[in-house]
């Protein structure tokens, strides 16, 4: 029983991390319908920029996090205005090719700039284990979970409570009508992409402070994030959370009771099951569009 509780706790922690790293993707892929294969690289850049600002600029973790948000937000804005805009409205394939190209470019630029070695991001607090009855967890993991949940709620509030959020939802339901109603859709697209990019980067820096930042992590992150988004349903925040937790707990239990060596299999089993039984995902806000 103690063992089960620890597995469950491990799964929930990792699940929140999965949800967090999939948030950026659920915005860009789920709302904007851009199949963003560079998602993992935005995440990776968040960790690497985080390493740079905490190591070379001497910032503490939280100021670093703010600076990373600003830098990567502007970067996302620029990527949308200069790259994604050129292929908008031409179907999904040009976007896929564009983001695959972008991901290769970003990985190799990073390899060139900082090399392939893992990088250490300064931690927000001194690390140490906390014992809750039979369950062990660490301070940094708890903090990362709290920040992660806060980010999820903040992103949800932006989409559902602000004028910009209304403009986003209007634009993605019907770009033509939104533009006729006076919404500057180009700005809205760029803002959404920037927000998605920022969320990916923030989760990248947060998790890099627990694990480590490295130029080559992007591929695995993209893969897991697609699993989470498909499980949860496109563009749905509750879905991303449910998908993340489901994946985290399933992996922890599979790893705990079967074998850790084959743990990646379980995510894809779940995806196949979901696509067969409930193709729109656990939660879906997908509206039929004209």
């Amino acid at each position, binding site marked *: 029983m103690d*063992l089960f509780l*620890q*597995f469950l706790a*491990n*799964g929930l*922690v*990792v699940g929140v*991390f999965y949800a967090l790293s999939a948030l950026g993707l659920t915005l860009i892929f789920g709302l904007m319908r851009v199949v963003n294969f560079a998602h993992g690289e935005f995440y990776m850049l968040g960790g690497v920029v985080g390493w740079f600002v905490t190591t070379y600029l001497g910032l503490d973790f939280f100021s670093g996090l703010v600076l990373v948000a600003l830098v990567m937000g502007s970067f996302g804005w620029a990527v949308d205005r200069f790259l994604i805009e050129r292929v908008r409205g031409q179907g999904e394939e040009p976007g896929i090719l564009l983001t695959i190209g972008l991901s290769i470019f970003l*990985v*190799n630029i990073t*390899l060139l700039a900082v*090399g*392939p*070695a*893992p990088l*250490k991001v300064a931690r927000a607090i001194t*690390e140490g*284990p906390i*014992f809750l009855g039979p369950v*062990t967890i*660490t301070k940094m993991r708890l903090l990362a979970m709290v920040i992660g949940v806060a980010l999820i709620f903040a992103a949800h509030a932006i989409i559902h409570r602000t004028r910009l959020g209304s403009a986003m939802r209007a634009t993605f339901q019907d770009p033509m009508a939104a533009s006729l109603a006076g919404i500057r859709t180009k700005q809205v697209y760029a803002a959404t992409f920037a927000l998605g990019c920022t969320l990916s980067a923030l989760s990248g820096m947060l*998790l890099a402070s627990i*694990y*480590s930042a*490295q*130029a*080559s*992590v992007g591929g*695995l992150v993209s893969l897991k994030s697609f699993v989470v988004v498909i499980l949860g349903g496109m563009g749905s925040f509750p879905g991303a959370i449910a998908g993340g937790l489901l994946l985290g707990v399933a*992996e*922890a239990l599979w*790893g*705990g009771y079967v*074998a*850790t*060596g084959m*743990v*990646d299999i379980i995510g894809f089993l779940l995806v196949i099951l979901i696509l067969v039984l409930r193709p729109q995902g656990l939660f879906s806000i997908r509206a039929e569009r004209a």
Partner: protein
Amino acid sequence: MYRYVLGCALAAGVAAAAPANAQDSVKIGLVEPLTGSVAYNGKSVVEGAKLAVEQINAKGGVLGKPVELVIEDGQCAPANSVNAVEKLVQKDKVAVLVGAFCSSATAAIMPVAQKYKIPLVTGVSSSAALTEQNNPWFFRAAETDALMAKAFAKILANDLKLKSVAYVGVNDDWGRGGVEEFSRDLSALGVKTAMTEYFDHGTTDFFTLLTKLRAAKPDGIFVAAETQDGSILVKQLQEMGLQSKVFGVGSWATADFINLTGDAAEGIYAAVPYVSSVENPANQDFVKAYEGKYKVKPGKYGAAGYNALNITAQAIARAGGTDAEAIRKALAQTDYKAPNGNYRFTAKGQAYGFDAVLVRIEGATPKVVASAPVEAPQ
């Protein structure tokens, strides 16, 4: 017909161009992972190799010509490594191949080397099966897991007083090989196996595995992992509050591993074929040269690249030309004085005679606990 003629013309052109190139320099092809999850270790091999080439060329090269290193990225993947070798052989016309890092990739390029009849030297790949394939073109200037296990099993069981050991390895042929060899030799000495688990390359969260490990309550934990995975694993071992003795194989005794792992690295043991703190003049010269060039002390892989290139260049010099068969024969006669002892090859192409060391990390530096010569396998 036209196509056939064109093909012949092309082939003739390439053949004519090749000797012209060969006169300028002696080319050695190096296939290492420069991207992907072990890129970081692959880069160290390249650094060591470049240092060796620089030193050889400073002394006038071999056969009166400078040595030229042609480096390709094999990504530790069999398919990419084969492509890299095809390119090195067909386009660059290298005299000898050195590589590839991962045993699975090396296993894939061995038949290619045999097909083109080009000697292949690896300084890293440690899967015991490679030298059992009776490929006369293949030489391994590295330890195997079996040889390391044999050299250290007794020291580990007696000096560390281990009654039960949990085995954790990366889920590939190297990790599985290391776990199997060490568990076999330690079991033979009466050490119980508490648990055996594997994890995938690039895993970041080990809490599930460590939960199982904590429940198994072993005296010692054996880990076969490279820098990236290993440092995260050891950090999380400490975060989970596990007190067992940790010992491992892989690039554990390097400055980068210790820097990444921080306090958690204190007190862990590593069985490595090379560590920079070994005290002998040859090693001190090597460390000085390496540090002067790269501002960091050489680790296991820096030394591996350095040794593989020196062995290769010396064999070419002894062969007196770039004829593949002559180089192969010269390689078999190797008696190379490395910073870590003397390298010779068995009839199967397995190196022996050099020293392996068991180190303990204390005060952020690897201290040599024991040293044992790697003996020729029976």
